[in-house]
């Protein structure tokens, strides 16, 4: 056995947008084992449920993460609505689906940019984020916010999108598709990009299952599981299939996310084409009493919102299991046997969100 050394990686590192630390046990340039340390920014947002009532907590849930803030608020509202047996209006379901898919779109474009930056392709990074800005502009025009929207509420949504704006979004999706294809072709076909992604950090289908991987991380290893297929919000009325790849390497994870970018655009167009008229919110009466687990598909994978209520305006418990938390064990597995130079790319290919993890 070669002499082993331990290299501390993080919590501050140029490729890490948020703090996570790994102790990398090395034999020469090869990682033998990785031991994670998190908890640099734990905020205790779940504990805030004791101070904020069940309606105010929607705003707290949105602040779990700045990337999928809308879906955090939506997942929490869906749990409370299930406990209170509230059926939200059809139009609200479609609006929630559109904002969810716009969130996935900007999250995956953000990830593409970060990944390009990690392997030193700066112009690709800038183009990815330039395109992402267009999605943030849609958020600003439809909700008033670019990061936190505050449009989701228990019983529906607070804001509607006008017919003119919906037409504008549908038209934008067509031009956006061509622009996105220009950069995704580079991600999928450029030799220098492929040399950093193909065959790097392979996670087999069995390993992905055994380690509880979720989202694009699992689908890139051949697991065809996507919570949207269970038909929450308006997904039951939309025609789509989970995007799956088989090779389980960093390239496959990129391939899946790129496939999901185009799929999101298609889902948004389908929603706009069959968007029903009508109310966007129903009035809530009384306080929730009971418990419910909601599962939905965030950009990074399956997320769980457990809500336990006692019939008063304060809840007993809100618990959020985020996709990054579920994907850390799979990340540790992919790091085994990789070169030190590939560690940043591998951390990024799970699309880590430490803000979510340290809710």
């Amino acid at each position, binding site marked *: 056995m070669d002499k082993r050394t331990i290299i501390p990686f993080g919590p501050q590192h140029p490729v890490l947008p948020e703090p996570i630390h790994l102790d990398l046990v090395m034999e020469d340039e090869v990682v033998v084992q990785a*031991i994670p*340390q*998190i*908890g*640099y920014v*734990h905020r*205790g947002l*779940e*504990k805030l449920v*004791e101070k904020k009532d069940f309606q105010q907590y929607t705003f707290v849930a949105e602040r779990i993460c700045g990337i999928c803030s809308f879906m955090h608020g939506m997942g929490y509202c869906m749990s409370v609505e*299930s*406990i209170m*047996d509230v059926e939200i209006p059809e139009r609200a379901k479609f609006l929630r689906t559109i904002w969810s898919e716009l969130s996935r779109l900007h999250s995956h474009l953000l990830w593409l940019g970060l990944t390009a930056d990690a392997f030193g392709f700066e112009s690709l990074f800038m183009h990815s984020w330039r395109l992402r800005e267009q999605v943030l502009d849609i958020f600003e025009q439809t909700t008033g916010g670019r990061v936190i929207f505050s449009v989701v509420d228990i019983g529906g949504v607070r804001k509607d999108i006008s017919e003119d704006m919906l037409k504008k979004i549908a038209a934008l999706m067509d031009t956006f598709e061509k622009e996105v294809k220009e950069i995704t072709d580079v991600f999928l076909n450029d030799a220098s990009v492929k040399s950093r992604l193909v065959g790097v950090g392979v996670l087999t289908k069995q390993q992905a*299952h*055994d*380690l*509880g991987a979720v989202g694009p991380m699992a689908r890139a290893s051949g697991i065809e*599981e996507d919570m949207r*297929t*269970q038909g929450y919000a308006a997904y039951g009325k939309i025609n789509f299939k989970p995007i799956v790849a088989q090779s389980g390497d960093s390239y496959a994870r990129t391939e899946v996310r790129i496939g999901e970018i185009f799929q999101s655009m298609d889902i948004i167009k389908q929603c706009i084409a069959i968007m029903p008229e009508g109310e966007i919110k129903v009035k809530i009466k009384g306080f929730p009493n*009971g418990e*419910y*687990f909601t*599962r939905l598909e965030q950009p990074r994978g*399956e997320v*769980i919102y*457990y809500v*336990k209520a*006692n019939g*008063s305006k*304060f809840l*007993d*418990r809100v*618990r959020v*299991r985020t996709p990054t*938390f*579920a994907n*850390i*064990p799979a990340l540790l597995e992919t790091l085994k046997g990789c070169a030190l130079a590939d560690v940043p790319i591998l951390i990024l290919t799970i699309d880590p969100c430490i803000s979510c993890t*340290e809710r």
Partner: protein
Amino acid sequence: MAEQTIGKISPNELLSETLRLKNDGYRLVAISCTNKEGIELTYSFDKEYDFINLRLNIDYDTTIESVSLIYPYAFLYENEITELFGVKITNISVDFDSTLYRIGVKTPFNEPKEEK
């Protein structure tokens, strides 16, 4: 409200029930903890969208076995529960000994609830 399966088990049944689900091909989705009137632990599993839960009610003095020998990745959930709620769990495969999160307050989620 859609039906959700929550089966109650005793601490003695935890490992055997978890092992049965593992052998049936279920994935451990999450372990959740609530501290109202004692400790309530919920182990959630999924197999092709079939979502089931095992519920364990214990008091603060009870020590339970880790399921990380059956599901190795359970160590993160179990460390979190130990650190935030003070639940006693033995034989966790990777035991952070209450240093998973760098928090200044010991078992913060186990504090007595304030009057509302």
